[in-house]
């Protein structure tokens, strides 16, 4: 029990004194996962909308592939991103393996199917005639699509939350493509693993608390927006 108690005490101190290293790791985590989420929202919402609104042969297969992608194991993503960015790999010339950019790419690959899958489901849940109604009021196709996205916004917020939640807590890909380099590509999850393996439970607990708080506050903000939108 002492171990936990001491750990929490030290963690509290690290947090209150705004330890520079801990702060740096926290900001990098936020930056990396935030950017990965933004990329996944741009790709996931647009592609998901196109899939949901159009009828094409093989649509079911595409949707089931997207849904499978929602459970993509991060280590598999990490493995393939590593291979692609490896010195001799197809994109080795970019020289971005073991950089924060590599983590962003890997996390975006993990989050995109999550956002896309929820977007497809959200758009398909809208009444079918809503599209016709919007067009019948004189909207252009682009205005119609924008209107539908606005109508599905509550579900799309859930998609963003799920995407962000998926990548901020992800470890496998980050450690494989980021390399957990101190002060450069170390994020909250990779640092927690490392500190735990070293027996530095106090730091690991501090990092975990930050991770939990971060996930909580981001979701609190999004949930607040979502609930405010609900009918009175």
């Amino acid at each position, binding site marked *: 029990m002492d171990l936990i108690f001491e750990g929490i005490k030290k963690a509290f101190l690290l947090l209150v004194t705004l330890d520079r290293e801990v702060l740096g790791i926290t900001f990098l985590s936020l930056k990396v996962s935030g950017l990965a989420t933004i990329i996944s929202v741009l790709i996931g919402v647009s592609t998901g909308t196109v899939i949901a609104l159009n009828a094409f042969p093989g649509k079911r297969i595409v949707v089931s592939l997207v849904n499978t992608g929602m459970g993509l194991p991060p280590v598999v993503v990490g493995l393939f991103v590593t291979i692609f960015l490896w010195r001799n790999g197809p994109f080795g010339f970019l020289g971005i393996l073991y950089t924060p950019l590599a983590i962003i790419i890997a996390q975006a690959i993990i989050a995109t199917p999550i956002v896309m899958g929820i977007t497809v489901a959200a758009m398909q849940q809208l*009444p079918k*005639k*809503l599209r*016709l*109604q*919007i*067009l*019948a*009021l*004189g*909207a*252009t196709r682009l*205005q119609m699509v924008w*209107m539908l996205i*606005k*109508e599905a*916004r*509550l579900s799309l917020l859930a998609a963003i939350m799920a995407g962000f939640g998926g990548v901020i807590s992800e470890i496998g890909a980050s450690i494989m493509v980021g390399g957990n380099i101190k002060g450069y590509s170390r994020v909250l999850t990779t640092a927690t693993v490392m500190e735990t393996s070293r027996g530095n439970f106090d730091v690991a607990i501090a990092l975990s608390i930050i991770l939990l708080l971060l996930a909580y506050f981001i979701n609190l903000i999004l949930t607040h927006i979502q609930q405010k*939108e609900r*009918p*009175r």
Partner: protein
Amino acid sequence: MNQTMPILEAKNLSVERAGTTLLDVPHLDVEDGEVLSLIGPNGAGKTTLLVTLCHLFKYFSGTILFKGRQVGNGLSAGQYRQKIAMVFQEPLLFNTTVFENVAAGLRFRKAPRLEIEEAVKENLERFGIGHLADRSARTLSGGEAQRTSLARAFAVKPDMLFLDEPFSSLDPPTRESLINDLEKILDGSGTTTIFATHDRIEALRLSDRIAVMNKGRILQVGAPDDVMNHPADEFVASFVGVETILKGKVIERRMGIVMVSVSGREIAVIGEHDIGDSITLCIRPENVTLSINPSKTPTSARNTFPGTIERIVPMGLFQKVELDCGFPLVAYVTHDSVGELSLCEGADVAASLKATAIHVVKK
């Protein structure tokens, strides 16, 4: 009907899905300022026709001319849809305030802010929902929501309005008050309207012309009294409220009257059919008069048949009497008449009807 160019003209409209014909309308004209009702049972193709006429359906063949210009060739589908508006059976409101819902069409048209505010206010007042402007559309009752939907359509000042059974999901009192308001608004605005309904009474109240549809086809188009009194075929007859439809053969012809043999009885009708022709007689129940002792004084009713009452069904403000006169016949009578004539099941009565009240459909 005026001789000017129709505002909307459809030619050879056809929609097919998986080998089934959903719509087959060789020709349909809509005159400027008229209200045309499409009536028919569920699945008759009313919605398909409206959606096709609005150019919302990709998969159709045929041409639509709006004010003489072909939609999709000379007038783009987008330009055309900015001149019309459609209201569906479900209100299909956006998840925002009532005000923003009514403003939606004008925002699509990028109208100036002041114009939007003015038009929205005017239409909210028109439909009696001014006090709901700031309410979330999700909190409205069915009637309020449909009023919002109608106000949203009227706000864009459409040249043509398409209404797809907008009242069918409302309870009777709400529906009644909304029909009243819409009737006044259509009278006042003169907006050309195509109005789909399965309720013939709604159609009679609102329209200048009625088109009866079944299985994707328009069976008859005409003025309401014309369609009601001169149905083109048995389907139209049964749909517009003709309760008695009898098949018979012409056995005698003299001076504009033909005698038709129906189940061994002879019925006099107006017509110039040839002896031996098979024809169908349509008799509206309100045209049948019942009496206990047929008076000896001659009347203008050419037909009087003794019969037995088989069933009396209350229909609200009146009662429906089903008779067996050798052939089935239905009469509508008031509650007072049922009392005065002591009508009851099993009683013998005489049913009279004028030859002119029988509509003939040639087979």
